[in-house]
């Protein structure tokens, strides 16, 4: 059949995927610590119908050939790890990372996941856990039950004040983790990412020192989705989708014209 039909079909497929990525970004526009994705498009292989330089007659050559592209494809969805905005909450267990880094979270199967969402709460034993599933923050921080207030320093040192003790006592240290290629992390939902072969190995460090982002207490990092940008992208994808479907209907008309005329 006419190649244009299948070429336009790849265009429709790719735009549908792009709209799915855009709608996921918009749906997560107010998810704390969410990083937007974008679809990466690539043109598919080209097919040589007439090779440039081929013979047109015994002593002349074709100056240019005919190469038909096979359409487009979404090769990847790339997470864009730029900093989100800061949201002040004044809740002592809300922390955000300013700069690079992830919190390390212990999954129930014993492996680690990584997150930028700093909305921590305490479980029944006083350990810091994620708000949704209740996964533990690593290294484990346990707040004593008689703590009056919790102070988390920019370097991640957690100290508490206890009634009757004038000096705050240190109960733990929050370390953050950097990756060479954070785009290579695999998002697994629940604001968590897991390590993959392309992300590089996790490098644990002290926040605020040597390239690791600082920790800010009483603040959260909002999603880095720019809704205006997403809406403009949506308009663009929708129109490109329509144009591709226009090609399909044009080819359809041509083919039906053949059937009518001949």
């Amino acid at each position, binding site marked *: 059949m006419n190649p244009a039909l299948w070429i336009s079909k790849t265009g429709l497929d790719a735009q549908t995927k792009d709209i799915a990525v855009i709608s996921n970004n918009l749906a997560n526009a107010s998810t704390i610590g969410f990083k937007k994705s974008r679809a990466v498009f*690539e043109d598919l292989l080209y097919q040589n119908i007439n090779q440039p330089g081929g013979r047109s007659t015994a002593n002349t050559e074709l100056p240019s050939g005919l190469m038909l592209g096979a359409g487009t494809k979404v090769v990847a969805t790339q997470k864009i790890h730029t900093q989100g905005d800061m949201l002040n909450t004044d809740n002592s267990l809300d922390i955000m990372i300013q700069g690079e880094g992830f919190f390390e979270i212990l999954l129930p199967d014993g492996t680690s996941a990584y997150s930028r969402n700093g909305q921590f709460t305490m479980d029944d034993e006083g350990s810091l856990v994620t708000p949704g599933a209740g996964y533990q923050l690593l290294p484990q921080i346990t707040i004593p039950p008689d703590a009056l207030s919790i102070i988390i320093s920019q370097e991640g040192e957690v100290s508490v004040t206890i009634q009757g003790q004038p000096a705050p006592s240190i109960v733990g240290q929050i370390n953050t983790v950097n990756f060479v290629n954070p785009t290579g992390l695999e998002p697994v939902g629940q604001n968590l990412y897991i390590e993959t*072969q392309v992300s590089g190995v996790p*490098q644990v460090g002290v926040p605020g020192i040597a*390239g690791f982002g600082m920790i800010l207490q009483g603040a959260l990092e909002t999603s880095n989705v720019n809704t205006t940008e997403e809406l403009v992208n949506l308009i663009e994808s929708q129109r490109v989708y329509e144009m*591709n479907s*226009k090609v399909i209907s*044009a080819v359809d008309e*041509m083919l039906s*014209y053949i059937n009518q005329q001949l």
Partner: protein
Amino acid sequence: MDKMLYIAMSGAKQNMQALAINANNLANAKTTGFKADLSQARSMQAFGEGQPTRVFAMTESASQNFDSGSLLTTGRPLDLAINGEGWFAVQTPEASYGAGLGGLGSGEAYTRQGNLRVTEDGTLETANGELVLGDSGPIILPLPVNNIQISADGTITVQPEGAPNTEQEEVGRIKLVNPDVRSLSKGSDGLFRRKDGQDETADANVQVRGGTLETSNVNPLYEMTDMIALQRQFEMQLKLMKTAEEIDASSSSLLRTF
């Protein structure tokens, strides 16, 4: 058989192929750094005895539209767009077996797609996986690094992990070239190469812009108009085929009366 029928048929077939080029351009209306293919028709003469009537059409994709696409601001430091004319030099997988083909091609190709990423071993590559070339081979960043900065002339500076902010290390310069576009041809992987197979030398005047990407330069209005024109032209070819059939039918009915 009637020559008219075959000439009209070849015309209709070539119109379909030109439409495939339009369809491909429209499918890639959102592909970063894509350059629209241009199509043209050429007359191919097949004269024989008698009147020189047989001139077939042939569609070719003569070249690409090399105009710049518009710039899209993304804010990601590894998104690069070329300001004005120029190309990024990348290394394709054929470099590894280029020697086996009798030195055919060094695997150097050119692209305008500047959506870069760093792999886990520190090589800088495009989103499609081709290695980004520096002045001497692919660029490899000394891991671990913190800040990657790319200046307007393509120089990459990094801050090694643990180093103070004042310490910046220069690790290389992206090979930016500016060949005459007439000497370039598009390969079957969508990358551009020099027609003579030689490598281009770096051009110091090419400027890149960080945090931006170049969008596809497909002009949807042009493609849609061209598509309508091709569709109507196709219908005209079919009309001629129909006419040929009618002439044929009337001559055979004429014979039947005798």
